[in-house]
């Protein structure tokens, strides 16, 4: 418990420090929620949910509630680079706190090109204003990879046609924290897949400041919001894994907590999409599921307020929160050991690291081989 006591004290200090910062708004979050017809009970229930998601004991719940009251002291700047806007779309799907309350009530979203009213010169002005006014205080959220080939000119922004590279360098300078939202910002993503024509890279490869990676294609709304809330509560970086992902979200393999794990252990596999095994919800390993190699909490958090997730919908995990997954996990619908290498030597090496880092719990190489050798298909096709 000592560790938690220390953490508790830390959160307390954090809230004290936040409360001394100038508030951007006057009304408390509770008053605001009340005006929106959200009862305190619901608010506390939400705080309890976030506490549980971040793997903290329940006594942190009231602290959360306190921390959220201070959320208006933390301005957000969200920048878009080489991306598809899927991560923004995922973010606006969040239910708790609802995005409208995020926009209006809690957090001061100072810049977000998909949602903001201003355009052009006025948008640019908003960005410069936020970076100056809140220097050292704003959280920088980044969506998209950074094209670096041709001096970064595959992406230009604003009336002065600045490259994405120069915009991120400047915005990172005075940020209190930097989060790479999604696999493109974290690891380069789709545009960085071989042959990476634009030299796209993850944010932490082009700037010198520390970056927290929240990968996924897109990450679930709860991972995005949870990461923000964690920073709000502690003001420091959470425990991170070797790819700088928060351990509370990316600490387990999909495979570890998968609802179909029992079928894997029992050797019950979907042999073909749509077969009887598929109707029974058997394991998708043979259909290329990358759950054993992928660290994320989709198995428990799911997507769209827990409505569903890929394995729930009968499709294998494709490993989208892992670095270079497009190259290392493909073909996406085939198991890795029947890997078809695309004539790219670099890829072979990367497959090696993937396998080394993701020790296959319960899947020794021998076991894998036997899965493919024992074709006791009693079902017949």
């Amino acid at each position, binding site marked *: 418990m000592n560790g938690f006591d220390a953490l508790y004290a830390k959160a307390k200090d954090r809230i004290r420090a936040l409360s001394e910062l100038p508030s951007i708004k006057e009304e408390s979050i509770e008053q605001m929620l009340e005006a929106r017809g959200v009862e305190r009970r619901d608010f506390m229930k939400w705080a309890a949910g976030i506490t549980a998601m971040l793997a903290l004991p329940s006594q942190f719940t009231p602290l959360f509630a306190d921390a959220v009251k201070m959320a208006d002291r933390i301005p957000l700047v969200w920048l878009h680079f080489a991306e598809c806007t899927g991560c923004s779309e995922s973010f*606006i*799907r969040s239910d708790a706190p609802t995005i409208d309350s995020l926009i209006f009530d809690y957090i001061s979203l100072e810049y977000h090109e998909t949602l903001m*009213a201003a355009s*052009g*010169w006025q948008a640019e002005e908003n960005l410069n204003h936020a970076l100056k006014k809140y220097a050292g205080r704003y959280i920088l959220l980044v969506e998209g990879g950074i094209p670096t080939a041709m001096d970064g000119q595959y*992406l230009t922004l604003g009336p002065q046609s600045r490259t994405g590279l120069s915009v991120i360098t400047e915005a990172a300078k005075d940020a209190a924290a930097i989060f790479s939202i999604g696999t493109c910002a974290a690891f380069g993503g789709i545009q960085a897949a071989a042959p990476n024509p634009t030299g796209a890279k993850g944010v932490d490869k082009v700037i010198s400041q520390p970056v927290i990676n929240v990968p996924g294609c897109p990450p679930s709304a709860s991972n995005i919001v949870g990461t923000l809330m964690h920073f709000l509560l502690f003001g420091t970086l959470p425990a991170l894994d070797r790819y700088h992902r928060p351990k509370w979200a990316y600490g387990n393999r999909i495979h570890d907590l998968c609802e179909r794990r029992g079928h894997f252990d029992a050797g019950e596999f979907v042999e073909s999409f749509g077969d009887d095994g598929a109707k029974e919800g058997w394991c998708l390993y043979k259909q290329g599921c990358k759950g054993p190699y992928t660290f994320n909490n989709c198995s428990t958090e799911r997507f769209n307020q827990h409505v569903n997730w890929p394995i729930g*919908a009968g*499709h294998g995990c494709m490993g989208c929160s892992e670095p270079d997954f497009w190259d290392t996990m493909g*073909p996406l619908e085939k198991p890795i050991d029947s890997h078809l290498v695309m*004539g790219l030597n670099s890829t072979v090496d990367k497959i090696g690291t993937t396998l080394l880092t993701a020790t296959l719990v319960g899947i020794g190489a021998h076991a894998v081989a036997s899965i493919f050798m024992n074709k006791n298909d009693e079902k017949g096709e």
Partner: protein
Amino acid sequence: MGNRRVVIDPITRIEGHLRIEVEVDENNVVQKAYSSSTLWRGIELILKGRDPRDAGLMAQRICGVCTYSHYKAGVEAVENALGVEAPYNARLVRSLLNESLYMHDHVVHFYHLHGLDWVDVVSALSADPAKASKLAFKYSDSPIATGTDELTAVQKRVKEFVDKGQLGPFANAYWGNGTYKFSPEQNLIALSHYLKALEVQRVAAQMFAIFGAKQPHPQSLVVGGVTCVRDILSPTRLAQWKEKYKIVKDFIDRAYQADIIMAAEAYGTEETVLGGVGVKNFLAADAFMLNRTENLFQSGYIKNGDLSQVYDIDDMKIEEDVTHAWYKGTTPLQPYDGVTDPEYTGFIDGDTVNGEAKIIDETQKYSWVKAPRYDGEAMEVGPLSCLLVNYARGNKKVQNEVGAFLKRTGLPVGALFTTLGRTAARMLQTKLISDNAIITFNSLVENIKSDDSTYTKFEINPDKEYTGRFIGEVPRGTLSHWVRIKNGLIENYQAVVPTTWNAGPMDGNGTIGPYEASLVGLKLEDPAKPLEVLRVIHSFDPCMSCSVHVMDMKGVELSEFKVTPMSSGAAC
């Protein structure tokens, strides 16, 4: 005094990175307009050499707003190449997902991307909530989110921001511009719907995720069918879909439709929204399977705004021109023969109404988007095209819906050919889809009683070459994907995307595309704050990530493509 240049970069509230420049004369009337996309990602190059079964999931990453569109297109292009037909259940589920997508995407577009061009947030603060509450009944028999208490609360929340100069995402926009036409009460109604729509779009996304796994970027389609067999065989899941569907449909009927009727009334005489259709050719594809024999929309194109004649589409007449796009070459090429070789020339220094900036040199190349042409002509695609083509085709459902809207608003058919018409068409299309999605759903429920097949097995012969394509409708218009498979891997991949049709630059003949043409003649109140330009451009619902793509179909003959009529009624 010569023309002055106006630069708008970034255009916000769209997907991706877009720059628009216009030249205005001394009366602030737009003489020339240039559309430039400022990001290139090279996704089709990346697709080469991969497993064809991965094409859909990879192509889907072109765009996360019309997520699913490129997924379905990629999967169905590969199916078309391999000669695989997905089972009826799978085709219905794909159609149902598409209907769910439109019900989400169009609502988000109108409220969160386009709405602030019509709604003056600051003006809403001086509204009388009680009066506004009463007024809402003028546009809907049972309005939603417009009770006096609710409107008062909405107003109070926004007011606090404004009083402190803290507008957050509403900061520094063009509030107060004279072309905002809603009364304070109308602005308040729409603002309340803006907030309500944030809630509703979450439900719409859940509705999609029931059969799609997640939204954005679903993961339940495979070449040969769908994987969500457990969901479609579960009565609980079917009931969940229906429940969420009703919530979203309710909002479309009682808020979205009402607000467009209100906009038609308020903006019916506002000159700056009564132009905006410079290219009067419209192209659309088949879409939305309702059952084995019926699709909701049919394909075709019309020329010069003439609704008396609809033509069938011939793929051979599609060409792309790169004279002003950042690729090597100047000769227009058939997509199948297209070559891609980036040739970036950047911008030049220049003077604008807001001061020194980098500007487009229109005599050179100036965009990552190519200029597609049909039979040498520019074409508009999108919801407006879809409705006009189907109206002209005599599609009864479309004629009735459009007719009822015109009658209700007192607008003539000609009013469709405007920025206002384009925005109204998106609502009418959403309404048609949400009214008919239940037919698709019922077809599925009926069919699973006797048939639970969701997947067709297939083989890819590594010694054979395959070519195939998909053509259909997605939220921003007509989309086609083209694929060539060799040695069991993707040899070539190409997407011809809606926003490319609309946002492309000038071609080698000096013909301009829909974005650029829609702005010519537009009068700006204040060129330094070009709200009018945003309104016109947003009415197209730009999606830049989609539109910038590369072509590399060197040496493919059209005859190699198996062009079959759209049997699945696939929409996307």
